[in-house]
């Protein structure tokens, strides 16, 4: 699909040849199946991304001065297609790409120098310290606080649902440094070493039985003032920084993934005979229609961005659409799998290693993590449709 978009984008063939030829060579040299063992697979992905950075083929959308390739959007799309087609491993720490745009835009030269390269190389992993036991959807009510003592902030409190905390080297965190007020006043954006004294990480088992997130306790944790990003008390405003285009292309790589997963589900339906059931067949057709509509939606937003127009409401609804699609996909998938979908992953006879049952459980988080679907609907209704605020103050 994106070949037409790329053509429309008028990508300069000479320039594309330059990096895409290098990328093709790189991917050829790094071809191979991922190791089956989980630890080995992680090491393999890390090595891949370190080499990628070494070859100046990482971060297509970042500016060159931040260590990226500075490609325009059309080229970024082609880049992601090339990576997906080669089944290149995804960066093992997706959260890194939430902190990176903030550092690129609001970080000091020292901070960029220190953090960006190890982040790209996957030498250092990041986790996000936003949610707390008392601050979920209502994030600005967070109470983990820092007091300035000499040249350090002393942090006390607790973060929750911290994905990858047990593997992370650093946390980017929203910490209260002043009294609460409207617009997230008094919140600062701090970079905290996970190796600091006074940090306790307690992994939490999630719905799947795995440990993808943790509780993180702070007990007089000292954070050098040099690790403040932006102004003290100005953290809320910069926490949502993105590079615009980055977001657009991130959707694309999601989309390529969904396309692949849906095709894999079709294959299963054909071999298992599930497609003989007319109800399942209609549901599968609906999933196919949805994945195509997702593609149409992105194409529309991307076309607009490529032409320098406002992508409009399409872009703001994308996340919600994807979250719900993910859940519907897995609901249908379990019906395609059939009765053996009740088997757990550790049962060797579970169809396709139990991946669909596992995915079904995991998909429940897609309407909760990083802003619940309800909060997203509020935001869409207020920011895009202009409906009045639901808060009583109005």
């Amino acid at each position, binding site marked *: 699909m994106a070949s037409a978009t790329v053509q429309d984008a008028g990508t300069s063939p000479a320039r594309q040849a330059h990096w895409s030829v290098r990328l093709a060579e790189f991917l050829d040299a790094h071809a191979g199946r991922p190791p089956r063992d989980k630890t080995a697979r992680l090491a393999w992905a890390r090595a891949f991304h370190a080499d990628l950075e070494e070859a100046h083929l990482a971060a297509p959308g970042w500016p060159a001065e931040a260590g990226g390739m500075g490609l325009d959007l059309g080229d970024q799309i082609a880049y992601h297609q090339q990576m997906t087609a080669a089944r290149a491993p995804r960066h093992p720490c997706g959260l890194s790409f939430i902190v990176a745009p903030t550092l690129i835009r609001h970080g000091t030269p020292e901070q960029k120098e220190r953090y960006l390269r190890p982040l790209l190389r996957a030498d250092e992993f990041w986790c996000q310290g936003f949610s707390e036991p008392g601050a979920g959807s209502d994030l600005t009510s967070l109470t983990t606080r820092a007091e300035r003592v000499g040249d350090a902030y002393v942090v006390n409190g607790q973060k929750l649902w911290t994905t990858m905390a047990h593997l992370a080297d650093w946390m980017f965190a929203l910490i209260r440094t002043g009294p609460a007020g409207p617009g997230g006043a008094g919140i600062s954006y701090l970079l905290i070493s996970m190796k600091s004294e006074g940090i306790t990480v307690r992994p939490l088992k999630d719905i799947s039985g795995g440990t993808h997130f943790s509780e993180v306790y702070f007990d007089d944790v000292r954070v050098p003032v040099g690790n403040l990003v932006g102004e003290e008390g100005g953290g809320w405003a910069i926490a949502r920084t993105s590079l615009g285009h980055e977001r657009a292309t991130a959707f694309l790589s999601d989309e390529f993934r969904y396309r692949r997963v849906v095709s894999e589900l079709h294959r299963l339906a054909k071999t298992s005979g599930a497609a003989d059931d007319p109800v399942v067949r209609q549901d*599968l057709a609906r999933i196919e229609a949805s994945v195509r509509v997702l593609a149409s939606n992105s194409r529309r937003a991307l076309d607009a961005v490529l032409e320098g127009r406002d992508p409009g409401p399409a872009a703001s*609804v994308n996340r919600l659409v994807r979250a719900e699609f993910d859940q519907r996909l897995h609901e249908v998938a379990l019906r395609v799998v059939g009765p053996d979908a009740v088997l757990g992953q550790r049962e060797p006879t579970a169809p396709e290693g139990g991946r669909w049952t596992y995915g079904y459980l995991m998909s429940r988080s897609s309407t909760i993590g990083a802003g619940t679907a309800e909060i997203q*609907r509020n935001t869409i209704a207020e920011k895009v449709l202009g409906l009045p605020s639901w808060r009583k103050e109005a």
Partner: protein
Amino acid sequence: MSAVSDRNDEHDELRKVVRAFLEHASPSSEVRRLAETDEGYDPEVWRRLADELGLVGLIVPERFGGAGAGAAELAVVMAEMGRTLLCAPYLSSAVLAPAALLESGDETACAEFLPDIADGSVIATLAVAEGNSDIRDLDAVWTTARADGDRHLLFGTKERVTDGYAAGLLLTVARTEKGLSLFAVDPEAVERRPLPALDPTRKLARVHFDRTPARLIGAEGAAEGAVARVLDLGAVALAAEQAGGAERCLELSVEYAKTREQFGRPIGAFQAIKHKCAELLYEVESAKAAAQDAARLWSAAAAASEQGLAASVARAYCSETYVHAAAETIQIHGGIGYTWEHDAHLYLRRAKSSALLLGSTSWHLERVAADIGLVPTA
């Protein structure tokens, strides 16, 4: 980049022109007046659509007196018509009938009929469905054509013929020994009856052939593939109309939610209403994207299989979205939304009726399943 920009600029311009015209020519009062008539359109508005805006011959090639535009432009126009519930034989006479003539490959018939269709002087339609069968089920066509000298005689009954009562030229499919064939019939020679309908803003008729003289269009027995293509193009156009109608429903709902107050606040401040609106926004935006994408594929002369699949994806998605949007519009409006005087029911009628015309959602989903290789093994 420039080709895409130019195309989008042109579409924006076309959208503005059509919207401005329809806001004036198709207000609710006119929709309601025409809904009460058998013909269901205003001849003066139809003439202006043809002469001033050049929209009736939009997809007719220039050599036959049309504008020679593609499905992408057609989608822009249909979306606008859907927004205002325009009462006019546009789907019949500007989409289905000309597409059927063009697909037939019958140059003589095209030269004879298309210029009058394109300039709006003759209203044409395509009659396919029979009994209570889906229009896409061409095996259910039982109407027969018997050769009679240099013409044929038709026997059978066509159901739910859009604008069948107002039409001055009737194209239809009937079976001969060689298979499904396309015919042109003078409507004066048939028995036809306007049908009271769920959606009074799109007119339907029953057409009865009994030894009705008909002229063969294109090759005998060659209509099956051609009619399927015509109905696919119709599906693309109708999907765009549905997306436009759904978009208008959302606007009506949001406007109302901002102004209607209960418990001392606009009801749009309550999350129960807010979430419905947000939900509709993502469905409407997705529907618009799907319809535009299908139209783009038709304009770009993509592979026929891709076009058919895209048409069905768009139709399935837009049908469900429009019905949902219209139903929620009534819900968000509360009691007033359930009254005859409010337009919400006109949108619901159009939405539900459109979802059933030109192939049901089940039919389109089954087609999607077949096209991706999900067919019963038995």
